[in-house]
């Protein structure tokens, strides 16, 4: 029960964070120099035309009124019109966000599935060559900027070896619109098009690997150190003294408690993941939030900027909430007491 209130409380805080975020971004977007109406109409437009557009966009009204109008739309799911695409921002985001989401999900899957075993192996064979290789690779992953890895992979795997495509979500010859969930791999499965699915996977691999390197390294490092930490606990010695087999001790009695710090890190890792995703998307011409967001910022497309930031922010907040819930399922101490002890 306490745990339920704990979740509700976290939910309220998340909402507050999003309100704060919207205010800050709203202000920043309007404070930076440059008139969006002027940019949109070009240098040849008359002052009158610019004033007209400003009026139409509501830019001549006081800031707090503009904000209230914007929030009023937002709660109805209306992000306003984009100056640049002349479409509703909500509609634009419906195609851009799933592209980024697909990339980020693939990244998390790769980073977790490879990071945790690497950490476990390094801990199990601590101070041997296995551990050393694991540690060096993890560290390299953490310290190398993801866009650099992206360029390197493009050059090596894409350009020289021709193994994998280096641009876009699908081959131009493939006509497929992911219109169910927006995720190519999921929609291709639902529609029963294995060819499209395979093409989508091939396009996804390189960007996801470049993005995953840093998180993979971080997860491996945290898993390694918490496995070593846990291996010195009395309950592990007890498991050994009672003749529980080594593999069971390692993968059950050690891995589950070690997973708690890893999960916490995963939540934080998400922030840098979203940031890095912008760079990697640019490198691979991935039609996600990055392409859309960068264009919006260059053109001072207010509603588009707000949309990108709000969706990214909401996603981040949601993921961290999700991590809190997951932590509760893994760690009964959180679930029962609402705190670790």
């Amino acid at each position, binding site marked *: 029960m306490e745990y339920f209130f704990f979740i509700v409380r976290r939910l309220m805080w998340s909402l507050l964070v999003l309100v704060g975020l919207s205010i800050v971004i709203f202000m920043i977007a309007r404070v930076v120099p440059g008139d969006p109406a002027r940019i949109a109409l070009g240098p040849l437009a008359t002052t009158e035309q610019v004033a007209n557009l400003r009026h139409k966009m509501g830019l001549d009204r006081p800031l707090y009124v503009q904000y209230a109008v914007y929030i009023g739309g937002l709660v109805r799911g209306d992000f306003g019109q984009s100056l640049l695409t002349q479409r509703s921002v909500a509609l634009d985001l419906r195609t851009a966000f799933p592209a980024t989401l697909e990339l980020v999900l693939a990244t998390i899957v790769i980073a977790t599935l490879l990071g945790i075993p690497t950490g476990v192996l390094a801990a199990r064979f601590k101070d041997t060559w296995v551990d050393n290789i694991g540690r060096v690779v993890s560290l390299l992953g953490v310290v190398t900027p993801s866009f650099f890895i992206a360029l390197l992979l493009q050059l090596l795997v894409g350009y020289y070896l021709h193994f994998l495509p280096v641009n876009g979500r699908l081959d131009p010859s493939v006509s497929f619109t992911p219109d169910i969930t927006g995720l190519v791999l999921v929609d291709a499965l639902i529609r029963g098009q294995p060819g499209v699915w395979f093409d989508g996977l091939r396009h996804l691999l390189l960007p996801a690997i470049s993005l995953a390197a840093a998180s993979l390294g971080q997860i491996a490092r945290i898993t390694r150190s918490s496995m070593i930490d846990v291996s010195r606990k009395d*309950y592990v010695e007890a498991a050994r*003294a009672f*003749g529980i087999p080594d593999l069971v001790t390692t993968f059950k009695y050690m891995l589950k408690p070690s997973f708690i710090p890893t999960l916490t890190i995963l939540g934080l890792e998400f922030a840098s993941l979203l940031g890095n995703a912008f760079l990697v998307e640019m490198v691979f011409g991935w039609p996600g939030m990055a392409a859309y967001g960068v264009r919006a910022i260059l053109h001072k497309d207010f509603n588009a900027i707000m949309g990108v930031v709000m969706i990214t922010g909401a996603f981040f907040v949601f993921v961290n909430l999700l991590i809190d819930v997951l932590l509760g399922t893994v760690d009964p101490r959180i679930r029962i007491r609402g705190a670790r002890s």
Partner: protein
Amino acid sequence: MTVSGPNKGGPVLRVDDLRVAFSTFDGVADVLSGVDLEVHPGQRVGLVGESGCGKSVTMRAIMGILASPPARVRGRITFAGEELLTMGRAQRQALKGTAMSMVFQDPMTALNPVFRIGEQLTDVVRWADRRRGLRRTASERRARILEVLGQVRLPDPERIFDAYPVQLSGGMRQRVLIAMALLNRPRFLIADEPGTALDVTTQDEILRLLNELVRDEGLALLMITHNLGVVREMTDYVYVMYAGNVVEHGTTDAIFAAPAHPYTRALFACVPKLSGGRAYAGIEGTLPDYTRPPEGCRFHPRCPHAEARCFERPPSFDLGEQHHSACWLHAPTEAKS
């Protein structure tokens, strides 16, 4: 010279010249330098000494949970007539938690916080069954666990079975640890200072319970502790350890009546008396550095009776049928013999 202790069909556990060394940054730490001890069926044996004297290393060596390397174990540990240190890995593994079992010391850390009590206990039974080729259904195992949880007098075993450690008090968790040790009907139990992490009244209850269970089941017990009160109440025979050596051993009555070794005497003098009087200052000096232990008797740098021959290692001298001390003070003098 007779073998110490009553000999009813041989000891359950016999440790001969046990030596354990660890490689450290400062060189080789010679922690145990020839420990001998015996535990007979149904006997309750105490192993006393201050923290760091090698009690826990002895216990880990017996249980086979010393990580080696870095530990180097030599000597002989015989359990029920079988040599533990040379037997096959599978055979050694099969004994763990079954014929020989262990009550862990700290109820707050010896249970895994993220698994239910029932799941942890079930694994202890399940893997032991598998090693012994015993076929039991899940519900039979569950029944056995609930039975033992009742035996350690935990109220509502069903609820405990489904609880996480965090939902139980320290005393309850300690009872769970005792239950864990008893699950597979051991013949020999090692208890590592059970209850020291609990408050005094709870500890007292726990020790009483353990004592009763050991008597009822006719178990042999090796109790590791630094608490002399516990030793007096719960054991028949005592080994006093100092810096990796057994310095004195004998029946509990004999040792409490007349502690002989200077270290034992100093240890007894440290116990505050209820009748008041000046608090004892403790024993001068500290435990030696195990990488450079003193030659001969390891206690001599702290001993008020130290003399030249203490640089040679004293053998165990008989003080009586069942009382032995490893101190030159107790060497039979030429005149008497």
